[in-house]
């Protein structure tokens, strides 16, 4: 028994070393750094709770959290609902099913930089497609991602993130739908249940663990979203009203070389995500149905 333990540990040890070096140590080290002033050149200088106090007393920090919450509030439900509807549609026997599946998944593998060029064209004030259509309809054009209204700017990016991330969620939900036992569906049909009833009363409850999983993943990705903000907003001219936590971390660490405040913000974000996930887990039992 002891011998088999030894060999087991031997074979997993490279990965354990990797996890310790590349995950455990950086996490603990960033925790330590959050209590220091460190420019990455001179030794860290302990400053106690200064970084934490500075962060919570900085109004931009709270604006950033407001924006991330708002972003998640739009992104998570919309992505889940759209992905669910499209997965349901693509689960039926329709022509060109493979083509449509590929089309909906395509944004997921499109680089953010390329996506941003297209969306900047769509959202452009003077020559953008959306404003062009609005003007054809006799309405006024609007600023979108560059609006002075934070909720319009952040909302525009949340919609863009739905476009980008929906494909992946759709694939997970489609796989779950295909695992719904056909005999249950057939039995329901035999009892006279319509398509909508089957979807509402059988499909959704049966795939609810996967819906829950995708919602957890979407929530985490909403709170850690970075590329969408980096490519759409100019990080050198980002107004405070549109600030988000990840861009604050990036700016503090890599533009200003202030690792202490950057680590503090990263830890605060981690704590918030943890709290949200725990809350989601609390509500899990109310609507998620596991087979056993």
């Amino acid at each position, binding site marked *: 028994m002891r011998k088999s333990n030894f060999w087991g540990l031997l074979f997993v*040890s*490279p990965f354990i070393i990797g996890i310790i070096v590349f995950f455990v140590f950086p996490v603990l080290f960033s925790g330590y750094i959050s209590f220091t002033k460190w420019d990455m050149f001179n030794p860290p200088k302990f400053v106690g709770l200064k970084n934490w106090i500075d962060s919570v007393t900085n109004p931009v920090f709270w604006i950033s959290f407001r924006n991330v919450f708002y972003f998640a509030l739009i992104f998570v439900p919309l992505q889940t609902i759209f992905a669910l509807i499209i997965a349901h549609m693509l689960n039926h026997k329709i022509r060109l099913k493979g083509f449509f599946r590929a089309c909906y998944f395509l944004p997921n593998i499109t680089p953010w930089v390329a996506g941003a060029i297209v969306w900047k064209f769509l959202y452009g*004030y003077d020559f953008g497609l959306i404003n062009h259509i609005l003007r054809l309809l006799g309405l006024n054009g609007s600023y979108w991602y*560059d609006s*002075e209204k934070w909720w319009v700017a952040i909302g525009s990016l949340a919609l863009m993130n739905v476009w980008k991330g929906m494909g992946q969620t759709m694939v997970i939900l489609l796989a779950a739908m295909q695992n719904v036992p056909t005999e249950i569906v057939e039995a329901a049909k035999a009892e006279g249940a319509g398509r909508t009833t089957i979807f509402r009363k059988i499909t959704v409850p049966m795939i609810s663990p996967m819906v829950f999983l995708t919602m957890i993943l979407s929530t985490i990705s909403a709170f850690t979203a970075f590329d969408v903000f980096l490519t759409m907003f100019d*990080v050198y001219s*980002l*107004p405070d009203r549109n600030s988000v936590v990840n861009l604050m971390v990036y700016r503090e660490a890599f533009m*200003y*070389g202030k690792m202490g405040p950057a680590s503090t913000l990263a830890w605060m974000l981690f704590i918030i995500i943890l709290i949200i996930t725990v809350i989601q887990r609390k509500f899990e039992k109310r609507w998620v149905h596991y087979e056993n």
Partner: protein
Amino acid sequence: MKRRLISVLLIMVMAMSLLSGCGPSSGKEETKTTDQSVSGTKEENKTEEEKKEESKPVTLTIGLPGGYDVTSKEIIDGFRAAYPHITLVIDEAPWGDFTKKITTQIAGGNAPDIWFQENAAVLGYGDMGAAEDLMPYIKRDLKLEEYASNLFSAQEGEKVWGVPHGGNPIALAYNKDIFDAANVPYPTDDWTYEDMIEAAKLLTKDTNGDGTTDVYGLLTAGGITDGWFPWINSAGGQALDETKRNAVFNDEKSLKGITEWVNTIHTYKISPSRSTNNELGGTAQMFGNGMGAMMFLQYSLGSAVLNTNFPDLNYDTAKIPLTFDGSERVVPNVSNTWLIFSKAKEDNKEAAWTFLKYYLSADVQKLVAESGSTIPVNKEALAYVDTLQSKPLNKKAYTEGVDVAGVTLDENKCWNEWRTAAQPIFNDIMDGKTDPQTGLNQIKTDVQKILDENFNE
């Protein structure tokens, strides 16, 4: 027991192989000096001290952000030929990637011996102790009368944290065809901002009569170098004071300059809005497409955008206009700056300085000039720039402009931080979302807070 020992060794080998992928060697190109085809005229000019140095072989790691697109390969090859005892290891990466990884390299103590970056970043490195003070080297080896004043663009107090890789000043570019068509005389070096605005009014046209402007007299930029910074100086105002530790921004003169900047769009209507500008590819692109008669043109954009994308564009340059009252001229100049890593070995520091002396020599600075992407700092090479036949022909607008009236963008160790705070408010002012007075007050408050945080630590 023996098997365990072998197993432990095996684990170590596996772990080492796992970690080796992250070693510092990736992205580096080690090249020993073999190319002797490049002229070795430097050999004849070497001092005795340099010849002594040559007896000791040195491996010098040199960081090149942007690779050979930004620093001519001819220059690097020339150094290899002239100094065969120095083996160069080139650490190159695209600009954005380089600036990200250099932060971690500095933290790990394995940064290149010498590299270049934006001047403001170099000032920050100097402040934290990562850059070597080059003042003793300069005093020892350089004849100051041979260099333009921006040799000292990375000076803070008595210390010099780097020397220019090259300068990138602005000048007033104008489209000759549009001026000819409107029968307006070309800009001259004695123009004031007022003259420029008046000419722009004459040049702004709705050519097809559809009620919208097709040709703008002036393409006003929103950024710092060619946008709000020259305009804040246009009436004698300032961003920071001379100490670079106090924000000015909202004094009467600055307000006048920024108000005129906004007026070019919203009152005089001689310039497109910021959104139009952005959506049509920026000022240089619009200028190249014949949609603007004048713009403030950074030197590098002449060769990189206009001469490349619009080879037939009939344009030239004049110096940046004098202030509204005609009393002075201010020419913003952005520098990239070479620095020597303070933790490099002493031999490597000397080898790095040897490279910098080579780089600053007249012959090499002429190669810098020929690249067209940057203005050299050596005066002989500056004179040589004027003889180059590429557009714009009047390169004195840049070379004399920067020599006589060149200023940095009020760079200090927290420049990135304060200008990032100021820029979005300037954008709002330019878009008409905030009035100039309110916006400048806000900028002054925000920037002063950042300056206090950084200088009163």
